[in-house]
C-alpha cells in the first residue's frame, strides 16, 4: 500500500508512492534561486522570532525582485518592514537592532544603494566586535542583488564583492546556485556576525535541481568553503556567482576538444577558501579566475596574490591570469553592455592562452 507524501514548493505538487520513498529517497525538485532565497528566509523567520526583514518594498510589494513574496502576508508588519528610501538611516537602524538582541535581514534593493549606507556596514557593523573587545556582537545580514544586470547602466551595475571583501569583521558570501542560495542564506542568518550576502539579479529566475537533503529545514552550507562544481585535470577555473555558469559552459565546450577544466565555485568571498584553490592547482598546474567585477584590486587580483605567496606557486606551469569585467563604467546599449562583461569565448580564449594551445 502506498502512502502519500506531498511537497508544496513553488506552486508545484509532487505525489510519491511510499515504496519508492523507502527504497530510494532521492527526490529532485526544480527550484529557482529566487524561490530558494524566499524559502530560506521563510524557514528562518519561523525558526527564530528575533529574525526580521527590512528594506524598500520588501513587504507589501512582495519585494522589488519578488524575493520576499508572501512573507509579509504570513508574518505581518512587525517582522517584514517596508522602509522609506533612506539607506543610511535604515541600515543604521538594522545594525542598532542587531546590537540590542534582534537578528535583522537588511535588504538593499541593489548593492549600488548600499554605498549610501556603507559607513554603517563597515564602521558600525563590521568593526564593533573588535573595538569592544568582544562585548558587542552584531548578528546582521545585508543582502540584495550585486553586480551587472541587463540594461540598467552604470550606476546600477557595480560589483561590490571586492569592496566588502576587503574588510575584516565582515563575512562576504556570493552564492551561485539555488542550493548555494538556500544553504548560505540560512547560515548567514544563523551566523552571529555581520554577513554581506551578494545575490545576482540575473540568477534569480534560473532553476536548479535540489535534492531532498538540500530541501531539509536545517540544510546549511558552511561559510568559508568553496565547492568543486566540475572535476578536471588540465586547468583550474575559479569563479563566483553568475560567472560560475559561464565557466561550466566554457568547460563543456572545451571538453569536446579534450581539455578538462576543474571549476571551483567560491561560494564565499571572505573568508576566502585559498586551500581549495591551492589543492586544485597542485593537480592541474594552471589557473584562470573569472569574475564580473572590475580588474583593479578585484577578487581575481587577491586570488592571484595569494597563490603567488603560497605553496601552490611552484606548481604553476604558466602565469595565472584573470578574466574580469572591462575596466569601464557599464554602458547601456546592448552591444556595448555585452562586451563589458566576460563572455564564454573570453574564458575559452584565456584558458587556451594559459595552456598554450
Amino acid at each position, binding site marked *: 500500500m502506498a502512502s502519500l507524501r506531498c511537497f508544496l514548493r513553488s506552486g508545484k505538487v509532487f505525489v510519491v508512492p511510499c515504496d519508492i520513498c523507502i527504497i530510494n529517497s532521492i527526490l529532485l525538485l526544480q527550484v529557482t534561486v529566487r524561490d530558494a532565497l524566499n524559502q530560506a528566509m521563510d524557514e528562518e523567520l519561523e525558526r527564530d522570532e528575533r529574525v*526580521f526583514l527590512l528594506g524598500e518594498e520588501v513587504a507589501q510589494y512582495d519585494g522589488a525582485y519578488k524575493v520576499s513574496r508572501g512573507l509579509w502576508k504570513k508574518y505581518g508588519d*512587525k517582522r517584514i*518592514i517596508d*522602509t*522609506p528610501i*533612506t539607506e*543610511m*538611516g*535604515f*541600515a*543604521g*537602524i*538594522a*545594525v*542598532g*537592532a*542587531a*546590537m*540590542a*538582541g*534582534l537578528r535583522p535581514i537588511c535588504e538593499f534593493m541593489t548593492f549600488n544603494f548600499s554605498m549610501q549606507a556603507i*559607513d*554603517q556596514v563597515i*564602521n*558600525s557593523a563590521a568593526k*564593533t*566586535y*573588535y*573595538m*569592544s*573587545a*568582544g*562585548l*558587542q*556582537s552584531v*548578528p546582521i545580514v545585508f543582502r540584495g542583488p550585486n553586480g551587472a544586470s541587463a540594461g540598467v547602466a552604470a550606476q546600477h551595475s557595480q560589483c561590490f564583492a571586492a569592496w566588502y571583501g576587503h574588510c*575584516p*569583521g565582515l*563575512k562576504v558570501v556570493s552564492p551561485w546556485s539555488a542550493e548555494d542560495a538556500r544553504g548560505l542564506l540560512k547560515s548567514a542568518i544563523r551566523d*552571529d*556576525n555581520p554577513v554581506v550576502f551578494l545575490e545576482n539579479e540575473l540568477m534569480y529566475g534560473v532553476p536548479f535541481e535540489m535534492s531532498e537533503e538540500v530541501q531539509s529545514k536545517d540544510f546549511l552550507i558552511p561559510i568559508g568553503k568553496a565547492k568543486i562544481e566540475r572535476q578536471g585535470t588540465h586547468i583550474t577555473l575559479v569563479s563566483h556567482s553568475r560567472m560560475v555558469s559561464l565557466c561550466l559552459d566554457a568547460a563543456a565546450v572545451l571538453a569536446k576538444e579534450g581539455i578538462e577544466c576543474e571549476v571551483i565555485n567560491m561560494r564565499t568571498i571572505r*573568508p576566502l577558501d585559498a586551500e581549495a584553490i591551492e589543492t586544485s592547482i597542485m593537480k592541474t598546474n594552471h589557473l584562470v579566475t573569472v569574475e564580473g567585477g572590475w580588474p583593479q584590486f578585484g577578487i581575481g587580483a587577491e586570488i592571484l596574490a595569494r597563490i603567488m*605567496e*603560497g605553496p601552490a606557486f611552484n606548481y604553476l606551469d604558466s602565469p595565472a591570469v584573470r578574466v574580469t569585467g572591462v575596466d569601464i563604467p557599464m554602458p547601456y546599449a546592448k552591444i556595448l553592455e555585452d562586451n563589458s562583461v566576460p563572455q564564454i569565448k573570453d574564458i575559452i580564449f584565456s584558458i587556451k592562452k594559459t595552456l598554450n594551445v
Partner: protein
Amino acid sequence: MRKMLTIISNVLRGSASRNKCDVHKLEEGPPLQAVLTREEGLQYYRTMQTIRRMELKADQLYKQKIIRGFCHLYDGQEACAVGIEAGINLSDHLITAYRAHGYTLTRGGTVREIMAELTGRRGGIAKGKGGSMHMYTKHFYGGNGIVGAQVPLGAGVALACKYLGKNELCVCLYGDGAANQGQIFETYNMASLWKLPCIFICENNKYGMGTSVERAAASTDYYKRGDFIPGLRVDGMDVLCVREATKLAAEHCRSGKGPILMELQTYRYHGHSMSDPGISYRTRDEIQEVRSKSDPISMLKDRMLSNNMASVEELKEIDVEVRKEIEDAAQFATTDPEPPLDDLCNHIFYNDPPMEVRGTNPWTKLKSIS
C-alpha cells in the same frame, strides 16, 4: 539638616542669558517644581565631581603623552550625563558619539576601566582595543567615532525595545555639529513613522569643533529640527532641569507616543579635543564667564548648601574621596600592562572557531579566537 527639599526649578534663572525651557509641539514642558532629596543631591554631586576630576586627570595624562590619539573631554557638561541617567533606568539604553567618558561612567563603567582604556592597557573597558571613542557597557552602545551614525543605531536599539516588548527606551545623543547630518533626519522620519521609543538629545555646547552654531546651522533651534517630533529646550547646566526634562521625555516614550527630542544647552570647558586649545574660536572671557556663573557642580553645591541639605565639610569629604578614587584609577591606568600581542587578532568574529589571520607578510600567520 533638611532631608528633602522642594526646589523651584528651571524656567527662569537669575542670568538673563540663559534660555527658558521652550517647547515645540508639546502641550507643556517639565514641571516647574522638582523634588531633590539629600541622597539624590549627594549622589549627583559625587558623580558629577567624579566625571570632572576624571576628565581633568585625562587632560594631565594626555599632556604627559600617556594617553594618545583622540581625547574628547566632557568637563562642563556633567549635568547632562548625570541628569539624563537620573531620569531613566539602567535597564534603558543609551548611545552617544565620541565625547563619551561621562556616559561610560553613568552607564555602569568604573573610573579604573575608563582610564585604563584611555591609556590603552589590558584592564581597559575594551581591553585597550577601543580607546577613548569606543567604550561599551551593558545597554550602552558607545562611544561612536563617526558622528551622526549613532543616531540611526540608537533608533534601531529602540526598535528592538519595542519589538521585544520590554518597556525600555533608548536615549540617542548627538552634538550641535552632528545635528545637521542627513541620517539624523532619516532617523527622525522612521522613528516617527514606526513610533519608536527614542529620546533624541542634542547636546548643544555651541561649537562643533571650531565652528560656532551660527556658522553651521541655518536654524539653531535644534529642539525644533525634528519638525513633526515634539521637542523641548532645556538648561543643560542644571542637573535638575535635565532630570525633569528626561523624565517627561521618558514618560512620553513609554506611553507609546513615539520619539521626542530634547536640546540641552550646555558648554564644554576644554576645546573640541586635546589637540584643540579651544581659544581660537571663542574668548577666554566666555569660558570664564560660564565657569563662574553656570558651572553645573557649583550650582548644585550652592543649592544644597543654601538649603541646608549638606554641609561644606561633607561636600569637601566627597571631594577628597573622589580625588582618591581618581588617583588610584590613574595609578592603575599607568601601571597596568599593555594588552598581550597574542590578543591582536582576537575578537574579529563572535562565536566562531579559531581562525588564521594574515600578518604583515605572507609567512606570518596569526591566530584569532572569538
